[in-house]
């Protein structure tokens, strides 16, 4: 931990999913808009107008239906193909300003602006904001601080300011601003820690900054003291410009309607397996353990709730779709119970490692293994060329009745020839 002269900017897209929907649909500009999670379950993105109506983040759709009707709120299902493409465009634009950056999520990135002079920081960030808006159509807010946590805090304030850019490095009011941020809105402070802090009279970011260091060390974990140090301007988390290889891979979906039959669950588990296997093969990884989980809706708690999962340790590390499906289906059979209405199924591949650690197993026939590797390569190649699921295995099913419901989707994809946005000639 060193005192540093770092200058970090956090660029965060405003109401990102809503902004993506507005890009090709000017009719919803200036109107209240929300985007719902898979199966049109919960609110996951809100326009400023929707926030003003009191619609909360994460609220189930059925709870806000009344507000939606009374105020003509525009509803959208998720369209991740579109959001993903727009996100890549935003990140590419940012990269032109700052090659040293960390993509933190689909709509956030940390930029290392240490080479920019202090007095030019604000101007530089206004330029970034303006360019991202012009090039990609996405509005952003930018927070500047000497650590990641401070840049997050600055961004939190920037979101509420008209200018959309806040610089804490040159600010003389930094403590005043930090005391306006509630402790649960500080980056890295979760629900449990919030409860603990509030009980001990720490209510704002400023309170945490000022608290005695040994007290934090004694009473919280290493992350707690890191956050406090970062608020004081000591950097504890550096920028990660390269994506780290994943250690786990989880694929799960909620069903579009309730599913009761083992066959349908099997189809969905198989499809998730194939997706996950394709992902890890792309990263040249193999897997050691596979977990299958199923559950009914948590809203059915009273009468008919069931949730279970099963791990299977694989005898040999693999990324072979057929082998993984076989194991997953046998795990599914163990946990499946008749008479429940299942809402979600998924698989987790864990203990991922690079392929070159792949140990030849004494009992596997090498010949067969090579054949399988070639088969997997052929499947991946075909699917990349002819589209997802062009080549699959029969257990995945063809009709997929259980697939997710996205009835309000905009069905625009800026990276797919058949779903391009449209401009009219009148």
């Amino acid at each position, binding site marked *: 931990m060193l005192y540093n002269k770092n200058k970090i900017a956090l660029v965060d897209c405003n109401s990102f999913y809503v902004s993506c929907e507005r890009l*090709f649909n*000017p*009719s919803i*500009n200036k109107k209240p808009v929300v985007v719902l999670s898979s199966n049109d379950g919960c609110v996951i993105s809100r326009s400023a107008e929707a926030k003003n109506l009191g619609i909360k983040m994460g609220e189930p759709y059925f709870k806000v239906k009344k507000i939606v009707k009374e105020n003509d709120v525009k509803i959208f299902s998720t369209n991740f193909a579109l959001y993903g493409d727009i996100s*890549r*465009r*935003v990140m*590419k*634009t940012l990269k032109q300003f700052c090659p040293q950056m960390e993509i933190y999520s689909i709509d956030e990135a940390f930029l290392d602006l240490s080479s920019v002079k202090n007095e030019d920081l604000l101007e530089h960030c206004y330029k970034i904001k303006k*360019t991202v808006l*012009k*090039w*990609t*159509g996405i509005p952003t807010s930018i927070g500047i601080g000497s650590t990641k946590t401070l840049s997050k805090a600055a961004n939190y304030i920037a979101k509420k300011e008209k200018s959309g850019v806040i610089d804490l490095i040159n600010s003389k009011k930094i403590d005043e601003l930090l005391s306006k941020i509630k402790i649960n809105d500080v980056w890295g402070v979760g629900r449990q820690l919030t409860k603990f802090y509030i009980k001990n009279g720490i209510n704002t970011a400023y309170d945490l900054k000022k608290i005695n260091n040994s007290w934090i060390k004694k009473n919280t974990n290493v992350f707690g003291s890191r956050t406090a140090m970062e608020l004081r301007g000591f950097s504890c988390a550096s920028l990660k410009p390269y994506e780290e290889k994943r250690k786990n891979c989880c694929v799960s979906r909620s069903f579009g309607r309730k599913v009761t039959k083992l066959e349908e669950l099997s189809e969905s588990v198989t499809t998730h397996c194939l997706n996950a296997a394709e992902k890890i093969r792309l990263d040249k990884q193999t897997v050691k353990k596979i977990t299958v989980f199923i559950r009914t809706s948590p809203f059915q708690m009273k009468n008919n709730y069931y949730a279970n999962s099963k791990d299977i340790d694989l005898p040999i590390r693999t990324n072979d779709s057929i082998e993984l499906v076989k194991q997953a289906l046998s795990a599914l059979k163990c946990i499946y119970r008749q008479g429940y209405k299942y809402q979600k199924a998924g698989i987790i591949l864990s203990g991922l490692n690079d392929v070159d650690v792949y140990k030849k197993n004494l009992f596997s026939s090498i010949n067969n293994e090579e054949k399988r590797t070639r088969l997997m390569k052929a499947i991946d190649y075909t699917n990349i060329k002819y589209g997802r699921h062009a080549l699959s295995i029969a257990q995945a099913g063809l009709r997929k009745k259980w697939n997710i419901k996205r009835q309000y989707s905009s069905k625009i994809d*800026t*990276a797919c*020839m058949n779903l*391009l*946005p*449209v*401009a*009219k*000639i*009148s």
Partner: protein
Amino acid sequence: MKLLLPFHLHKVGAGFPSPATDYVEDDIDLNSHLIKNIPSTFLIRVQGKSMNDIGIHDGDLLVVDRSLNPKNFSTVVANVNEELVVKTFVKEKNCSFLTSGPNKINLTENPEIFVWGVVTYTIHAL
């Protein structure tokens, strides 16, 4: 969006080596030719009538670059009456207009109408 057209390929076997080897250029990449600024360039499908005077027809693909500022007589995609439409951008004295046929919209008088992006190419199937 990656499309490479093999421009020249050869394999030296036995026999006389190809005299064209020294002239082999890289593959032609239509993307790099049509798209100057990747993050700001969108493909947009034309719908409706045709603009015969500038050669844009129903179903054509427009290459639209949002990073460019329109010049006089640029073809643009604009946000007009809550829709994306194709128009011609015209400058007259201190005013900017959007035109298509005889219709003319004054941009200065209608701040809610704005240029979405500048059309740089149109791709038309024969």
